[in-house]
């Protein structure tokens, strides 16, 4: 059993038994369901909108090399600098070099899951830079020293009392149980940090090939401030975030907001084309973009699951997932939690270590139904299970499947096997068989019927 799997089973078991926490998460998501349905109802045809969104991403991802070349040429024409990184280490080295070149001290960040993926904060702090997360949820998680719980709602599992204590401890503020007051504490604290920072680091939601702009989606305004006040702007993005045309955003921006947060649009959807231009009164002197592969091309090479790269990181699949709601986001141990994380993590980090996430699913398909770009999420979990079995089946799996195949092709043997199975079932329950014993720990197995279906059929009028 892989280390990751052992940790997962331990954490998931622990969290699933925490009834209070589960109720808290369900309550927190309650408002989202209401708002999402209200907003979806405003679409004249949500299903066609999903088709269009899916096609926009398909078109870009299946022409990725050409679109990236077009995008980078336009991005550079706008005055930006493009850097390519094959993996996390290269991306970190590029950003550390920029920070050293511009003699930076303080760095302010807006929410960027790709930076979590490459463990950027650790690297920057080790190199002696002060790094502050400015998104409220990320700020709270940074103070807690904990990874994000949900890639859109990073601290949705933390109760207000805990946040108040955290702020008292780190910021010296008076305790309060008002979410509004807590938000204002963070607002006041962070304002000065934007003004003082040398570098602002953001992510990117979309890279527009046609115009060379990057698009950033947010609600709080922290990304706007991060890209406005510091003298250097660095954006970090996966290579798959490309869309061909600006017009594609007319579909993708509203759908991202509706599927992800139950909003018509998020508060700020901002397009950046280069650093401060002549005649503009503010903005950064330099604009850098780091384009990260980090095994995305490995996922691209699998045509069956290539559509997982269409993901616009709205988080809708997490919000509807019964597994996510029961085990919570931290148990996954991944940068991207929930169904999409379970699908892509084995590609990004290795199937052998991470295939167990494919089984952390009831295959109910709620994720696939919720996905605004129609990623076939629950089938991809099955694809990963199949691929893992092909790649490195255990001795038990090989023996079991060989035996099952042999018996299933021989009706007499099948009938006999059934008889033996029914007769020995009470004994089997007590044996420590793989899969079976884990399943029976929390479930009762009904007694076997006296007759098989085939025997009943023969005895009936039809037989």
């Amino acid at each position, binding site marked *: 059993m892989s280390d990751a799997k052992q940790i997962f089973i331990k954490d998931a078991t622990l969290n699933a038994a925490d009834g209070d926490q589960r109720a808290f998460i369900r309550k927190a998501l309650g408002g989202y369901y209401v708002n999402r349905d209200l907003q979806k109802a405003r679409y004249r045809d949500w299903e066609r909108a999903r088709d269009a969104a899916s096609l926009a991403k398909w078109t870009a991802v299946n022409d990725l090399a050409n679109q990236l070349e077009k995008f980078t040429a336009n991005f550079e024409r706008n005055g930006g600098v493009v850097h390519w990184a094959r993996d996390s280490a290269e991306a970190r080295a590029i950003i550390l070099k920029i920070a050293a070149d511009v003699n930076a001290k303080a760095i302010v960040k807006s929410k960027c899951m790709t930076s979590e993926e490459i463990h950027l904060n650790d690297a920057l702090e080790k190199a002696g830079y002060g790094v502050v997360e400015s998104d409220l949820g990320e700020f709270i998680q940074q103070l807690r020293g904990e990874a994000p719980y949900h890639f859109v709602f990073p601290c949705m599992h933390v109760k207000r009392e805990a946040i108040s204590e955290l702020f008292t401890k780190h910021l010296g503020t008076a305790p309060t149980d008002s979410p509004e007051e807590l938000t204002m504490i963070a*607002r006041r604290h962070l304002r000065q940090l934007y003004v003082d920072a040398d570098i602002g680091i953001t992510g990117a939601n979309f890279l527009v090939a046609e115009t060379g702009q990057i698009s950033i989606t947010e609600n709080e305004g922290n990304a706007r401030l991060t890209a406005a006040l510091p003298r250097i702007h660095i954006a970090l993005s996966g290579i798959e975030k490309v869309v061909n045309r600006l017009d594609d955003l007319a579909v993708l921006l509203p759908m991202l907001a509706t599927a992800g947060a139950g909003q*018509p649009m998020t508060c700020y959807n901002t397009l950046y084309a280069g650093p401060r231009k002549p005649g503009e009164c503010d*903005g950064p002197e330099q604009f850098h973009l780091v384009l990260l592969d980090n095994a995305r091309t490995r996922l691209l090479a699998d045509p069956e699951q290539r559509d997982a790269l269409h993901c616009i990181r709205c988080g809708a699949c997490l919000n509807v997932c019964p597994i996510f709601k029961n085990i919570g986001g931290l148990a996954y141990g991944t940068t991207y939690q929930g169904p999409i994380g379970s699908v892509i993590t084995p590609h990004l980090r290795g199937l052998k270590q991470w295939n167990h996430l494919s089984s952390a699913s009831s295959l109910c398909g709620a994720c696939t139904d919720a996905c605004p770009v129609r990623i076939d999420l629950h089938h991809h979990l099955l694809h990963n299970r199949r691929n893992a079995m092909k790649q490195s089946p255990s001795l038990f799996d090989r023996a079991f499947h060989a035996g099952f195949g042999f018996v299933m092709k021989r009706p007499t043997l099948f009938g006999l096997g059934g008889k033996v199975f029914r007769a020995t079932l009470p004994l089997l329950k007590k044996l420590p068989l793989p899969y079976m014993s884990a399943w029976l720990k929390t479930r009762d197995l009904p007694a076997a019927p006296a007759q098989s279906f085939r025997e009943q059929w023969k005895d009936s009028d039809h037989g």
Partner: protein
Amino acid sequence: MADARSDILARIREALQVKAPKPHFKAEETAGQPVKIAKPWLPDGGETTEASLLILAEQLAKLKAVLIRVPDETAAGQAVADLARSKAWKQVAYHGAPLVRPVAAALPCPAWEADASFEKQKLEGCDASITSCESIVAQLGSILVSSASSGGRALSILPHVHVVVARVDQVVPDLATAIALMQAVHGEKMPSMLSFITGPSRTGDIERILVLGAHGPKELYLVLVG
């Protein structure tokens, strides 16, 4: 060893040797006619100006943004001056657009034009900012500002209150129209920042409870002239 760029592009081209099935989508059947409404499956933005204005008012109200309709520029100045008095603004920064200057001149408090280089700290100390905009999207209640039409990047995000002054004819039905207009106006020379502002800044990060004014303006006013 090849550089990272050629390496990654080569990996992509190699990966795309095998095709993935194209998703099913039937584009609008227009039979050679120009499409009257772009993307008729998205939320409605109104087919007439009147319909669009109704949708806009409804959307802004839901977003907790305040819409102030005035007949002319004098009335716009009056409305914003009333706001300044009732909120006791002490200092306001504005973008020197033709529509904004007379409004700023009518203010009862000190106001300065933030179009030249300025101290960030000074702007942070302002109670409110007044800017123009590029267009307004009825469908979603979004206001498109840019580093050209709104006095740079910080003016429309740093002060605690943001007031946008616009003409009624700047209202467009939907996002697709606003984007097409943006491309027609700026072509290859896009302003370095274009931002669709949809309501005052907000967060739900604490227990998913809505709080306005997370980092950007807590209050957003749209003064529509005409």
